[in-house]
């Protein structure tokens, strides 16, 4: 994931045939693969995230599960959600899902954000918040289908998982990946991770009897750069509220696009309207006015 790619030649003068090196290097979209079927809930990823990002470990909340707290916080970006799912035969299945920013290909937070440069998406797919440009309006939170951006009341800025963009930029894998002891977390190009995820889902179907096993990579938001292998891909909600069909509100898609022409129309009608009225019809004066000069042939112009 280094910058070698930027020096790949794109066009060449007076050169016959294909460009040397073209298509040799693979897609540089990064992706995190989370295999929920091999997660043991050890929370090493939670600790690694807090350690690498140098965040203090806050208070935990005990609510009769192994879960550290109900949802992620502005300084706790990586949370394993523990869910007890009752199967049709009455037995209990313990589901563990590492919850964090999904790094959507079409990020709702970025669409919702009204601050120039506060949310960026790198060409490798990572969606990152630039706190120095954040105005603290929290619109991103309403744009996000996964309830990820969290507001810090003191700094009045919003924070979330960066997919360790600082590590990835140096060719390292994210901290959570490095800490995972079971190998349920993997990191690489999107194509590779999708390939491994599909292989694993196939294996679960064929060898372990999980007939609904599948990969979670929701296409309603153009796919994500964090994908899951689920025992039951038809019911992602069972994994602590993972939406089966995540959506960006229409106010951030249709309205934000409409707002520009609509504003132009209102401003144009208002300003141009009164200006043209003034120069064409003229003001209404208190009556009586001075008598109107009688029109003559020389006065038509």
């Amino acid at each position, binding site marked *: 994931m280094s910058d070698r790619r930027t020096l790949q030649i794109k066009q060449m003068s007076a050169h016959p045939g294909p460009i040397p090196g073209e298509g040799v290097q693979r897609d540089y979209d990064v992706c995190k693969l989370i295999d929920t079927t091999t997660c043991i809930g050890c929370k090493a990823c939670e600790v690694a995230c807090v350690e690498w990002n140098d965040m203090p470990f806050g208070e935990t909340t005990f609510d009769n599960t192994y879960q550290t707290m109900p949802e992620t916080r502005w300084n706790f970006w990586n949370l394993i959600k523990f869910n007890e799912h009752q199967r049709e035969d009455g037995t209990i299945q313990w589901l563990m899902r590492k919850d964090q920013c999904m790094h959507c290909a079409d990020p709702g937070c970025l669409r919702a954000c009204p601050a*120039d440069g506060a949310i960026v998406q790198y060409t490798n797919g990572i969606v990152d918040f630039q706190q120095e440009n954040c*105005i603290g309006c*929290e619109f991103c*939170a309403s744009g996000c289908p996964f309830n990820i951006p969290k507001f810090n009341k003191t700094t009045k800025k919003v924070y979330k998982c960066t997919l360790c963009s600082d590590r990835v930029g140096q060719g390292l894998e994210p901290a959570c990946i490095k800490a995972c002891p079971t190998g349920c977390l993997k990191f690489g190009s999107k194509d590779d991770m999708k390939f491994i995820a599909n292989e694993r889902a196939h294996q679960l179907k064929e060898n372990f009897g999980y007939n609904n096993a599948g990969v979670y990579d929701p296409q309603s938001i153009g796919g994500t750069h964090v994908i899951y292998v689920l025992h039951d891909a038809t019911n992602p909600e069972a994994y602590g509220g993972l939406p089966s069909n995540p959506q960006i509100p229409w*106010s951030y898609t249709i309205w934000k696009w409409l707002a520009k022409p609509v504003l132009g129309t*209102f401003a144009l009608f208002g300003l141009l309207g*009164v200006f043209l009225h003034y120069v064409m019809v003229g003001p209404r004066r*208190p009556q009586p*006015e001075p008598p109107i000069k009688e029109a003559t042939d020389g006065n038509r112009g």
Partner: protein
Amino acid sequence: MGTAVERFDEKAHHAFDKIGQNHVYKGELLRHRVYTRFLHWMVALCFFLALFSGFGIYLPWLFRWFTPIFGGGALARSLHPWFGLAFVLFFGLQTLNWIRPMMWTAADTRWMRNIRQVINGQEKLEPPDTGFFNAGQKMQFWEIVAGCVIYLITGIVLWAGAHVFGRLTIAVSYVLHDISALIMLGGIFIHIYLSTIGEPGTFEAMTRGAVTEPWAWTFHPAWYKEVTGRDPKQAYEEAARAGRWEDPR
């Protein structure tokens, strides 16, 4: 409206008349007292502060140059709800002050049917039943009342954020807040135009508080009759016969 509101307004008018002054010269009529003018200009100030601080949030690609006025985007966002709250507060007081003359009447319905002639400038004198406010002013007033209610509800929702009211409520409030602002933006051009160069002589009603008698019998004849006891049509015709016309400026 109850008499409690009237008593409150009367007290406020009385108190403000002690602080400020109404400069009414010979041949003029008192239109807006100090309290009304104070409220109007506080509403105007808060409106533009809220408008300009909101511009940068509404369309940053076009209006980003507004945000440095308020100390940057973050501060503009922090101040905007307070400007808005002050706007709603002052306009709320103005609503109490004006609710009686702003009540819709049958004469207003007739006025609206005739609006084409008004815009075309064919109607030199307002119909004799046009009172303290005409139907156009009343429409704008009630639009702002409705707008303030929408601003207040959706504004509090947007202020509190998605973790309090949920994603969908924010998404809907955002659009309603924008539309309400756009309608008022369209209205403010018309308001400023008509109160300055569009109908000369109007602006001083909100500065000194006074208007000339010809202004009153031209634009608000029923009100002219109410305060002077003279017939506006007759007063106009006498002035026309005497050749006393206003300085056209």
